[in-house]
């Protein structure tokens, strides 16, 4: 502890350089946390998936709907204990940049299949009773300052026109992975408003099964049932469905990992250079300390400690800022990342990465300072 003052004093001798180094590390770690959060927010939907839930969609593509008539046949499949369905609405609020997910759902059955979504009973009853009502996630309500009783106009893109919904409830997720940025409204309301040719079609069916071990068998049975129809199905676990949905964007995880690593690596090289310069400028002072009796090990720790402190400060600043900014702004990336939340483990990884940067960037100057020959160093100057 008594040496901390010495480390801090050395860092403060070139305030601008120290600030810029801390700042560049903070920027690198901010970007790291952001990119890492893109990955974890994708993964949140997978984590939130229930192992006892299957997703049934059109066998050719998600964009093709399935007939409503499948509902009754799906209910009778052996192993299926519940069925609900819904359509992706794809609208926006006031401006196209205000994007978030809206689903038209079969309200009487949806809560039986999504027990991770919690809503006060009175709000649930009000929602169920009113055809033009909707419920919204807690994060969405906070973002737009919507409350129960408000009327929310949504401009439809897949289903053109302005659709007005009265907010009758605000739901919360049982876990942090549950998306709280979605608006759910009545599928019946959507269906009755559509022209005759588009009526009675469903985007996705969700099936509840008795046990996760039955997933493969039930999926097989469902797909076999509609194999020779004009609208064949593809049934998979919700987890597999979410993973497939993410993979549609390509290998994002790898891409983001490469970009994040490149940024951190580049900043680390800059930090190494800065720390080496800082140590080289103090050759005489290091020689003086050694003359006073500071051992090689202590010099190594002092010089290395400077790099570690700078990196940790940058790491705390960058990771802390990322956590704070995305929490305060309810960032959703235009609705693309409904769960964009910097996880504590992301912050921890960022800080550990900063510590690693500190150790690596401090290693070369610290070793060089520790091995400095006093007589040689003094001869160069005196």
């Amino acid at each position, binding site marked *: 502890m008594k*040496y901390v003052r*010495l480390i801090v004093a050395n860092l403060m001798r070139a305030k601008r350089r120290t600030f810029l180094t801390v700042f560049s590390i903070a920027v690198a770690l901010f970007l790291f946390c952001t990119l890492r959060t893109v990955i974890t927010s994708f993964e949140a939907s997978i984590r939130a998936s229930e192992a006892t839930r299957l997703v049934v969609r059109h066998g050719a593509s998600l964009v093709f709907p399935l007939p409503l008539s499948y509902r009754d046949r799906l209910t009778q499949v052996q192993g299926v204990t519940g069925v609900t369905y819904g359509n992706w609405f794809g609208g926006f609020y006031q401006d196209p940049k205000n994007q978030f997910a809206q689903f038209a759902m079969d309200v009487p059955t949806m809560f039986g299949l999504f027990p991770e979504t919690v809503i006060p009973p009175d709000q649930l009853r009000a929602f169920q009773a009113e055809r033009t009502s909707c419920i919204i996630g807690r994060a969405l309500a906070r973002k737009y300052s919507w409350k129960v009783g408000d009327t929310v106009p949504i401009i439809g893109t897949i289903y053109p026109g302005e659709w007005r919904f009265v907010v009758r409830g605000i739901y919360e997720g049982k876990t942090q992975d549950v998306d709280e940025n979605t608006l759910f409204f009545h599928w019946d309301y959507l269906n009755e408003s559509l022209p005759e040719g588009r009526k009675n079609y469903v985007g996705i069916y969700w099936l509840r099964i008795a046990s996760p071990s039955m997933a493969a068998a039930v999926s097989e049975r469902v797909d076999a049932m509609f194999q020779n129809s004009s609208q064949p199905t593809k049934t998979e676990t919700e987890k597999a469905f979410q993973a497939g949905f993410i993979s549609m964007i390509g290998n994002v995880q790898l891409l983001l990992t490469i970009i994040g690593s490149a940024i951190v690596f580049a900043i680390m090289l800059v930090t190494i250079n800065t720390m080496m310069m800082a140590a080289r400028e103090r050759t005489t002072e290091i020689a003086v300390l050694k003359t*006073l009796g500071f051992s090689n090990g202590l010099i190594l720790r002092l010089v290395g400690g400077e790099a570690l402190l700078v990196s940790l400060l940058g790491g705390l600043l960058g990771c802390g800022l990322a956590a704070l900014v995305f929490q305060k702004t309810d960032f959703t990336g235009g609705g693309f990342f409904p769960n964009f939340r910097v996880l504590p483990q992301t912050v921890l990884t960022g800080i550990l990465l900063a510590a690693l940067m500190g150790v690596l960037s401090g290693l070369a100057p610290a070793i060089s300072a520790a091995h400095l020959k006093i007589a040689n160093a003094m001869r160069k100057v005196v």
Partner: protein
Amino acid sequence: MESNDLVELRQVHKIYYRDRNEVPVLQGIDLDIRQGEFVALMGPSGSGKSTLLNLVAGIDTPTQGNVRVAGESLGQLKPSKLAAWRARHIGFIFQLYNLIPVLTASQNVELPLLLTRLSAKERKKRVLFALELVGLTGREKHFPRQLSGGEEQRVAIARAIVGDPTLIVADEPTGDLDARNAADILLLLQRLNRELRKTILMVTHDPHAAERAQRVLHLDKGVLQADGQARRIETGARS
């Protein structure tokens, strides 16, 4: 019978290598310094004075021969032990003071004490005492840039003595000072020797500075002159 010598050098040689050339700096040095002595080491530039000082202070190693200081053969010590030995036994005063610019006078003086197990309170007490001893009471919080050259050297002396070292080595301590400040510093060193019985080995170019010492040694081309001869040479040079 045990020797009373604090410093014993026997057949010490030091060779530097520049490119592929050998440059002998010290050749067969035999030197004894007794506890409580104030010894001045004189000689022209390049004669090996500072090298000899560095060997005695344990910050350089001889190419050949034995350096024994404060009962320890320095060649036998590992780097970490040597550092600890320096911290315990050597107080080093540099020509250019070499204070740490980002630390205050008291923080500079405290540096050697950081290596001890003394409490912060005890360290502070000793720092204030050392600064008082060199006449810098009230300047504890001043940074080196806020001090004159003479004051900086006093801080350096306080730093050298704060750990109560066995031997003070001074490499041209007045070389960068004006006559008045130089005289003050020499007087201070003399007091440390007389009043606190500190053993001092001082390298100097200045015959007036050397006069303060009890014994003057002369080094020429890496060879130490006999003590009596050395004194005569310096005296002759002044007359």
